[in-house]
């Protein structure tokens, strides 16, 4: 579908070692606009480390990362965020004491910081308030914009986390288990939200819920022990003998 267009994010031979342990080994993948690219694998397969390396949260041992055609391998995490890379965390990381709106407004403020302007109230910053409102509309949180974030339900907090990413106007979203700990109904809502975000974004989805992954993903990469063992469209991955072995093997063990 989007093979013709250049991928928004291109990772080549990404490797991350912690001492003797190779958490991510020679992983290459492309994220294209309008696509959800899921990364699945067992616990400890290196999925979260991959997101941490791609987002710049931790350093890379070797390999390169390109965002919108620019090499960002050596850039800091905030610099990557500026260049259009947004991420969410497996453990909900919101600002619990702020309102839902302020959570989004504050992250949106990163796009236009103006720290020297100490005399203007942040709440009258037009850029960030507009971005926050847009993000809340897009994620279906506009109705609870004035609630205190810490008092939301788990599902709403996960949604807010996505909204906070969207508010920074990223092109690429790296989502670390957005469905973790969610009930069936909340999962449905989140999957709807993710599908809606495909337009304008390239999404990397790390997830454990296999049903959900196979339903929403356009492309799936399977990792075992830090390395990619299969990558392709869902049907091909499902039919892959190595993937079946990896998953069934673990079930039988």
């Amino acid at each position: 579908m989007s093979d013709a267009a250049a991928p928004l994010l291109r990772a080549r031979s990404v490797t991350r070692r912690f001492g003797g342990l190779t958490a991510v080994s020679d992983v290459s993948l492309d994220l294209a606009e309008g696509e959800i690219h899921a990364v699945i694998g067992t616990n400890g397969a290196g999925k979260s480390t991959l997101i941490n390396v791609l987002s710049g949260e931790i350093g890379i041992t070797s390999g390169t990362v390109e965002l919108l055609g620019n090499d960002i391998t050596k850039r800091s995490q905030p610099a990557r965020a500026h260049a259009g890379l947004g991420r969410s965390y497996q453990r909900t990381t919101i600002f619990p004491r702020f309102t839902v709106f302020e959570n989004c407004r504050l992250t949106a403020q990163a796009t236009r910081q103006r720290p020297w302007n100490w005399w203007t109230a942040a709440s009258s910053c037009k850029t960030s308030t507009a971005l926050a409102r847009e993000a809340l509309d897009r994620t279906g949180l506009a109705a609870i914009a004035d609630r205190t974030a810490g008092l939301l339900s788990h599902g709403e907090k996960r949604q807010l986390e996505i909204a906070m990413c969207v508010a920074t106007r990223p092109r690429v979203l790296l989502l670390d288990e957005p469905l973790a700990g969610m009930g069936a109904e909340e999962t449905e809502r989140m999957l709807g939200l993710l599908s809606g975000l495909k337009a304008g974004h390239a999404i990397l989805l790390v997830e454990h819920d296999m049903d959900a992954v196979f339903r929403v993903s356009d492309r799936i990469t399977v990792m075992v022990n830090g390395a990619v063992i299969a990558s392709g469209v869902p049907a091909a991955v499902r039919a892959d003998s190595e993937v079946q072995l990896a998953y069934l093997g673990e079930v039988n063990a």
Partner: protein
Amino acid sequence: MIAAARRLSLPLIVVGLLLLFPLATTGFYLEFTSKVMILAIFALSLELLVGATGLVSLGHAAFFGIAAYATVLLSPKYGAAGVFWILPAAVACSALYAFCVGVLALRTKGVYFIMVTLAFAQMAYYVFHDTPLGGGTDGIYLNLKPEVMLFGARIVDLGKPVAFYYVVLACLVLVFLFLAVLLDSRFGRVLAGIKSNEQRMRAAGFATFPYKWAAFTLAGALAGLAGFLVAVKDGFVNPEMLSWHESGAVLLMLILGGMGRLSGAVLGAFAFALLQLFFQWDVAFGSFAKHWPLMLGGTIILCVAFMPNGLIGLPGQWRAWRARKAAEAARV
């Protein structure tokens, strides 16, 4: 509108009372209140770090003391310094030290940050304590207080207790308003975000280090303003101004008053100074009054145990308690 009026009413009443205070008293209590208002400025400067940014520093007295020493050392020996150059110069010395300490200390977190700020403060302490520069343990005297001259006329005589009192009050109000506006600005919101979740802020695209560095330097500069005022008030500085006791005391003021609110810092400074005065009162405590640190320490422990949000949090604590009681009553 009503909410804003309610929020402003208490600070306005306090400022009004402080404005009228010199009409009611002179001498000791006037000077005491001047001293406490200076401590409130000092506490507000630390609040910017601890309460607003979540950076717990145990070396804040260094910036307080450096400006005080700078005021004395930079003043001409046989003349009065002009306040319009000596004040910026003294504050700049503190800000510069904070700038240098910040770049190193802010690379650490949590308890390590506490230790590194303490270490840098002790370094400064020993520079003034053990070298001839600062007159050693005895400290040094400021021969003539700075003059406030504008167009050749002296506007205020800082040597007069009442005039000095009003200068300090004006400084306190200005620092409070400045911080209130700053914390509400985009810069202040980033500090609040860093306090809440620095990782999230970085992921959103904020390079958090320069923000923390700016806050640290600014806090040092404001502590320097307090130090300048103390030097002018007492006409004398000694190394104890930079000691870790002083750093600890200002931290206790914040804890006592309640962190995260500017008014908590001011309230804490007043509460701390009044408690200290109270326990030193030999009419009430007789010969035991000389053990005042013991009683002060015990009181602070009790305050921390029973008022987790400090004095400023008491109304909220009271409302929460009433709500809980009401809920229990409704269940029965």
